[in-house]
């Protein structure tokens, strides 16, 4: 039979190496293009703005490098708040889910309400927390930290408890029947079946929580009593008209987010290594 010659385009499309290369190369080229447009001040023409409001990438980099110690200190406070809130909130969220899975009829109703908390704007939450923690300590830095952590915590509780509840209750068909055929105790069912089943759901929750925890930390810093943290520096510098410094802090906030998300992906890859097959 006559074998049709495939066109060059078709052959490129089907070549695996070309595909992998383009998956990396195309986004990188796009990023380089944007930065070039930015540095070349073409973005400024598009957005109709000046190099003070939208400083050049080179300037932002220089500011970050020149002010590393103070930026580092502010970043550290933000990271502490975000991480502490994330960890405490996720643990509490998981415990709520465990509790709800023990009394499923009542638990599901409770979680609907927890889900509604998700819809409460952080802006409303932050000042309330500031008020509540007035008497926690005489050190304004410390009590601000507590208030900010509480905001992050509350935001993280909702996504973790809802996802973990699904992980603890949405079991594979017949898994429960199998366990009861072994006459397994409730405790055994929990540790051998429900807990392992919930692990992927925990990571689903964390993927949502990690970005939210940083955004919540940044926003709650706006309303905090004590002036510290990446978010507060963004705002203070803008009030003073120092846009380049504010941009430097925005870039730092992004870097914190990327680092935390990358860390999460790495942990997930290790923990769920043997479960990947099913996908």
């Amino acid at each position, binding site marked *: 039979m006559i074998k049709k010659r495939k066109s060059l385009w078709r052959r490129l499309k089907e070549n695996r190496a070309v595909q992998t290369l383009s*998956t990396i190369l195309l986004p990188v080229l796009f990023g380089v293009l944007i930065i070039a447009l930015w540095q070349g001040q073409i973005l400024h023409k598009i957005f109709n703005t000046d190099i003070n*409001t939208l400083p050049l990438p080179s300037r932002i980099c220089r500011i970050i490098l020149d002010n590393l110690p103070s930026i580092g200190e502010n970043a550290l406070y933000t990271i502490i708040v975000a991480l502490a809130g994330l960890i405490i909130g996720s643990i509490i969220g998981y415990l709520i889910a465990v509790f709800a899975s023990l009394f499923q009829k*009542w638990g599901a*109703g409770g979680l609907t309400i927890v889900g509604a908390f998700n819809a409460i*704007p952080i802006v409303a939450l932050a000042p309330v927390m500031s008020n509540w923690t007035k008497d926690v300590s005489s050190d304004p830095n410390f009590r601000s930290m507590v208030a900010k952590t509480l905001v992050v915590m509350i935001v993280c509780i909702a996504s973790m408890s809802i996802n973990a509840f699904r992980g603890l209750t949405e079991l594979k068909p017949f898994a429960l029947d199998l366990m009861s055929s072994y006459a397994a105790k409730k405790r055994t069912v929990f540790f051998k079946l429900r807990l392992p089943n919930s692990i992927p759901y925990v990571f689903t929750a964390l993927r949502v929580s990690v970005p939210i925890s940083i*955004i919540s930390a*940044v926003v709650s810093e706006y309303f905090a009593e004590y002036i510290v943290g990446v*978010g507060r520096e963004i705002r203070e510098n*803008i009030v003073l008209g120092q846009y380049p410094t504010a941009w430097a802090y925005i870039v730092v*906030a992004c870097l914190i987010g990327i680092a935390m998300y990358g860390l999460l992906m790495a942990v997930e890859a290790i923990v769920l290594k043997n479960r990947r097959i099913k996908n």
Partner: protein
Amino acid sequence: MMKSINRIRSSKALVMLVWVLGIVVIWEIFAFVVAATKRTPENILPHIWQIIASFFDPKPVANGMSCTQIVLTNAGQTLSRAGQGFLIGTLIGFVLAILMKLSRIVEKIAAPYLMLIQLIPILGMAPIILAMTHDIGSSRIIIAAILTFYPVATNTLAGLNSVEKAKYELMYSYAAKKSTIYFKMLIPSCIPYFFTGLKIAAPMAITASILVDTLQGDGGLGCMLSQSLKHAMSIYVFWDIVVFSAVIGVLSCSLMGWIEKLISPLKRIERKTKKKGAA
């Protein structure tokens, strides 16, 4: 059968009722403790009835307007901008998802940035966007749109990618055109996912708009919220706005659910069959 369905439905409502009552009771216990121990309890945790009463109190608190008048007049400004941003963000998110499905090149370029964009603290960038646009109204719209765009795009794309291979083969065997495949198969099947995105995005758009309010003294819910916190007017304005924004956030989410049910007969069926399953 009808009877048992009703029983389950009413018992579900009962569960929710008990939970809401439980929260009210806990709130009130703390409110009594706060009232007994703090000098200005209304700053920390007022009684629920005090908040409700403040909604109906015709006494003017600022500019000759009562609490409710302040909340409602400012809410119009905030919510209309949030709504506009939400619509723009939805449109952009949906179109991007379709483009990513249509072209592998667009998909490869956009996929990593779609993940990165959630790690940028957009809310933290609010002051800069305000500085670039010099207009609080368009800042609200832009930020609400950016926050909406991400969940809509990712969820819609997930929906477009969820269509099983056999459906493509069926359309292929009918020699269906590309546009037919999109309009008759891909777009209808991504609708439930699209609405999941909208449900996540709607409260976020409102949060964004309120946050942008706090940056300038031009009115809007956020602006009144910070003025009330600074004691420029009754503190109950603050509590009213917290309650109002929480309720609006939850309602915006359920509104999306109602719209979904309205346009998608499938959703109504699912509810029907779920109820059948429960009975």
